[in-house]
């Protein structure tokens, strides 16, 4: 927050602006709305530790090195220099036709049944997006610190090498925030979307909720609903169907019971998300099932999880099988280089 500039003494307009109150009392009942939204499951969200801000973790033994501060500083400098070189300019997006002749008008790309296009994000420096047939994509922002497009309908395949949170795709039902990844995103004519992540992970954002979708998982979003719960590619079909009913069709306890019954260890991330989408006895059931499939690590208590304490949720998340944090660092690096080179 900045202090307003001192206006010129001879400028009546700016003098009047200076006298404007910094605070305006909000409606008295607004807190009730905020509190209700918090109570609906939006708890402080677990945050990846600083060591994985770039999508891959250092090997644990590094943490005990005495040179850790120097190593961290050198890494920061090197990454900063690389980022600066990478982003010192943000060239316009380039669009190439990969099939037929898509329509380009007013910053929008429309493909028909026989056409497709490829968008080079920031001239290809930050990745590429393939626009499949029957799609409509609009380019919203191409700035150094933000690359944003809208997928109104159709399918895109994105391979993004930009730093996390720089590349965002808006759909009618959520914002897909890139956290260093490759994914396919499809939107139907009703605005329902399905995202399938193949590398890294993607955050699906709405004001009323957030889902984090790691690689080898998918999630639905629908207009008017919080983002759907992520599910594993190989999850049981009955589990997927029940999860959809729970998220979007008021499936309630019946749908939740099917999810819990059908879940196995590879569904731990799904159950972890459900902790924040349930309350009371239902949340306790989710906890018990998740604890049976992926026992909570040291320091995580049942009480803390049931109260959605950020520390407990974050620690458990980091230890879950399939969580991005569990990949060895070299595997993360190899995946990232592969994506960078366009191998994936």
């Amino acid at each position, binding site marked *: 927050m900045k202090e307003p500039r001192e206006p010129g003494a001879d400028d009546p307009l700016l003098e009047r602006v200076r006298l404007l109150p910094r605070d305006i009392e909000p409606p008295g009942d607004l807190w009730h709305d905020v509190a209700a*939204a918090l109570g609906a499951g939006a708890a402080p969200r677990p945050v990846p530790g600083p060591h994985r801000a770039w999508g891959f973790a250092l090997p644990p033994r590094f943490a005990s090195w005495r040179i850790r501060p120097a190593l961290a500083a050198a890494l920061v400098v090197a990454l900063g220099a690389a980022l600066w070189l990478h982003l010192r300019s943000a060239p316009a997006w380039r669009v190439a036709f990969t099939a037929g002749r898509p329509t380009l008008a007013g910053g929008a790309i429309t493909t028909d049944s026989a056409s497709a296009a490829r968008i080079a994000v920031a001239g290809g420096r930050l990745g590429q997006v393939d626009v499949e047939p029957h799609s409509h994509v609009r380019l919203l922002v191409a700035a*150094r610190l933000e690359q944003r497009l809208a997928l109104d309908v159709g399918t895109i395949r994105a391979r993004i090498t930009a730093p996390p949170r720089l590349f965002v795709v808006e759909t009618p039902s959520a914002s897909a925030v890139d956290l260093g990844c490759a994914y396919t995103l499809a939107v139907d004519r009703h605005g329902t979307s399905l995202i399938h992540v193949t590398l890294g992970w993607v955050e699906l954002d709405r004001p009323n909720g957030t889902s984090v979708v790691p690689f080898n998982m998918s999630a639905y979003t629908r207009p008017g609903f919080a983002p759907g719960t992520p599910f594993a590619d190989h999850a049981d079909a009955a589990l997927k169907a029940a999860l959809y009913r729970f998220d979007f069709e008021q499936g309630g306890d019946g749908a939740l019971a099917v999810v819990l019954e059908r879940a196995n260890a590879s569904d731990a991330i799904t159950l972890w998300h459900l902790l924040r989408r349930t309350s009371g006895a239902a949340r306790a059931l989710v906890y018990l099932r998740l604890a049976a499939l992926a026992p909570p690590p040291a320091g995580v208590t049942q009480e803390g999880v049931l109260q959605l304490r950020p520390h407990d949720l974050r620690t458990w998340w980091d230890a879950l099988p399939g969580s991005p944090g569990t990949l060895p660092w070299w595997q993360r690096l190899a995946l990232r280089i592969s994506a960078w080179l366009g191998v994936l």
Partner: protein
Amino acid sequence: MSDPVRLAQQGDQDAFAQLYRLHAGRVYALCLRMAGDAVEARRLTQDVFVRAWERLGLFRGDSAFASWLHRLAVNVVLADRRAAGRRLKRVVTAADAPAADGAARDTGAAERLDLERAIGALPPGARAVFVLYDIEGYSHEEIAALTGIAVGTSKAQLHRARRLLRERLER
């Protein structure tokens, strides 16, 4: 890091309510002036605090909580403006301008109300730059980075906003 922030990070909603009481006026003022509409401002303020609650874990105490929250509010409002651009364009009229609710209770109320209404009636792009630059104190470079427009465009929008305000207030 102050106690209410630390407690809120641990999931304490009472502590978060305390933070809300401390900062809601500042956030609401920003949302009201940026949106030019009291209903939208209410929705945006709610969004800001829900986001703040969700992202409290990201706050490391490197800056004042008020600064962190303020930047979050600016980002929420600008993101909403971009999304709104895709939806039905809404024409802001003088009648939609920030209401007198809390802004004009003290001395000079009429003048302030006129100015608030005039700001609310500015075109959205010019209004955003004017609020961020002249009221909130951001630089043109910061505004360009936040909004995705060029520095020159930011300066032009500010010039336009001031000209329109002077014309409106001199009538």
